[in-house]
């Protein structure tokens, strides 16, 4: 079957059958991740408004901070796209440069998120204070943990790219990391809308 054959043209990451399978497997994994986040979003929706004695989200959420975080993460998705574009052009240097910019933006996002959590804790909204805040911290925290993991993963990949250059295997790994990074961005769009925007209005 032609699906099994090794190709000599086309994007590096799709040339071997094994790599094509890995990319499909990763898409399915992202499907499972969607189920995971959907469950967390549903939990958040059910527990919305159950703040008990803790402050309400209207009192704590601040638009400038949420917007800054959104800006940082969405931009990082764009730079990640450029990185993959550079990879397709065969430019290792371009790939590494844009990958590092992506990471810097991701780290910036993470810094704001940590600051945000600490700030809320000072205002009396912690994981323990009510059902609403439990679901808030676990939902956004799970996303934040994914970003952290993505950053560590990218660092490992940068080392491998430096050591081995661009080949089928490193190209596939980088491509999959790109998929993961864009996915986190999509999740954030939903987080921004259903947690921050709605939380500030309702």
């Amino acid at each position: 079957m032609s699906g099994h054959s090794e190709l000599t043209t086309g994007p590096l990451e799709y040339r071997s059958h094994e790599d094509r399978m890995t990319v499909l497997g990763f898409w399915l994994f992202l499907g499972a991740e969607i189920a995971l986040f959907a469950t967390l979003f549903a939990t958040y929706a059910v527990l919305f408004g159950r703040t008990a004695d803790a402050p309400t989200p209207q009192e704590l959420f601040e638009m400038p901070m949420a917007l800054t975080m959104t800006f940082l993460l969405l931009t990082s998705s764009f730079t990640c796209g450029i990185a993959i574009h550079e990879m397709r052009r065969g430019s290792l240097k371009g790939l590494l440069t844009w990958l590092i910019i992506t990471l810097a933006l991701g780290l910036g996002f993470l810094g704001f998120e940590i600051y945000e959590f600490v700030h809320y804790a000072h205002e009396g909204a912690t994981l323990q204070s009510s059902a609403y805040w439990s679901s808030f911290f676990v939902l956004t925290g799970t996303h934040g943990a994914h970003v952290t993991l993505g950053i560590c993963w990218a660092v490992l990949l940068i080392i491998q790219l430096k050591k081995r250059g661009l080949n089928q295997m490193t190209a596939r790994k980088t491509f999959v990391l790109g998929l993961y990074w864009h996915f986190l961005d999509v999740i954030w769009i939903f987080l921004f809308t259903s947690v921050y925007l709605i939380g500030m209005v309702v």
Partner: protein
Amino acid sequence: MMDFLLNEFLVTGDPLIYGAMVSIVLVSIAIVFVLTYFRKWGYLWREWLTTVDHKKIGIMYIIAAIAMLFRGGVDAMLMRAQLTLPNTEFLNSQHYNEIFTTHGTIMIIFMAMPFLIGLMNFVVPLQIGARDVAFPFLNAVSFWSFAFGAMLFNLSFVIGGSPDAGWTNYAPLAGPNLNPGPAINYYLLGLQISGIGTLATGINFMVTILKMRAPGMTLMRMPIFTWSSLITSFIITFAFPILTVALALMTIDRIFGSQFFTLTGEGMPMMWANLFWLWGHPEVYIVILPAFGIFSEVISTFARKQLFGYKAMVWSMLLIAGLSFLVWVHHFFTMGAGAGVNSLFSVTTMLISVPTGVKIFNWLGTMYKGKIRFDTPMLWSLGFIPCFVIGGVTGVMLAMAAADYQYHNTYFLVAHFHNVLIAGTVFGCFAGLTFWYPKMFGHKMNEKLGKISFWFFVIGFNVCFLPMYFLGFMGMPRRTYAIEPEWMPLNVVSTVGAVLMAIGFIVFVYNIYYSFRYSEREKTGDTWDGRALEWATTTPVPFYNFATVPEITGPEAFWKMKQEGGTTYDKDNLEPIHMPSDSGVPFIMSAFMFVAGFGLVWEWMVVAIAGLIGILACMVVRSFDYDHGFHVSVEEIKETEEKAREGEK
């Protein structure tokens, strides 16, 4: 320190548990002694602990599942012993709670699923003409995380105490206030660790089946068991993340003090029931669909006819898979969600019986005018049909929300789900194991012993569970540890049935030993005059499965090959075969998961973090590993095949 050990760490004060501790220590010493004496440590590590071969992983799954079936079965016997007569003081209520909890959890999570996943592992790549699964390394991670998760769960028995909130682990009963201590943590972490492996299996098998089929094998030419595995993998991939979240939320509730399912802080205990069954109902189909696939293969083979209504079989499984996500509320109609909600879920539940009924008639249609052979795998399949139909019909009775208020939490329900899970899943596992046993081990299971075990088990099964419907009508509640005098006669009958089932199980296990000693060795690869591609290989199957992969031109690939000629050893077209390298990382990584889990169970954060660092370190090692596997030379293939095919000439 001593005080902590005796009062909290080790479970003390119960002779049954002292006995278990002694036997665990003795068995462990015996294993270490045997391995050392026969110098098998290296063999164990090289051939099994580090293997990525889907066939060996499948066999390990099945061995572990049979061990767990024994453990869960002992729990069942203890329960029956307690419930036979009124005023029995064999088990106290706490101990009884622990036993029904571990019985349910072990049977579903650590017996039914691994048994079927083991069969899937062994059979699916062979059925589609593949040389391994898509991600062999990940497959080993799946197995070892299941094995260490199961070990962690079972450890609760002697260290810290077993969970006691039922296999459904409802909040707030399972929450930190009403149930402090490590017991429930064992449940949460044991399931979490093994759940990671199950999710990986789901993804792995979807890719394997979608991407690694032999040339010419279109989706609608796939053997039906492969179809059932594909659909099961789909359900796993989308249902298990829900369990992951539910378990994580309750773990965070218990260890870090959040308020998801608590009674304080405006938490919602019923959220747990919803999340649990959002996973739990698809889970039921995860353990039944592969069994359906097995019955389809067996019935078609032993009726010596092509499967009747193949397309209807596929579509009905797809429908069942879709509907399985839309019925979860029927597990708690009495929650009080209102007439509208209950009606909706009542209807979706009844809808499932339609595709299931289609399948029943297709099996009957397959047998119609077939020349049926009554070998043991076929007996299990024939026993399945009527027994499962009883379970299905009582399921529709339970689906009627208004009537369910009467049945809810009575023995009627207990009888119902055992009727579907034992007649469906357990019979399916036994049918599948006896059917594929020759392919796995090179000899059949003894037919006579197989039939004895079948009759004991099936008669015992009906004697055990049919009375429970009537006990349910009489008002006997589920999970009670003491019975009223008027429930005694039927309970005595039920216990007799349980004993018969236990005898059936013992004969089944003895049969494994007996057949290993005395069964005639297989000379060809085609034991039962089979129809799908797994029978086209030699027995035992070479590690690379297929020397050459045949071109598939229609359904029932091997049946066609037998008529038109065709082989999996095309001498003139041999090419070197690429195979993945073994790795010890999956085993070590899962061992670290165990360490991290154990640390969280006891809320020893240092241990938990150490385990977590170990897991991450293993991931880093894997990331830097550019081992592309190795090639099997044409000469080696020739040598292996000539030797394996000597018996055929």
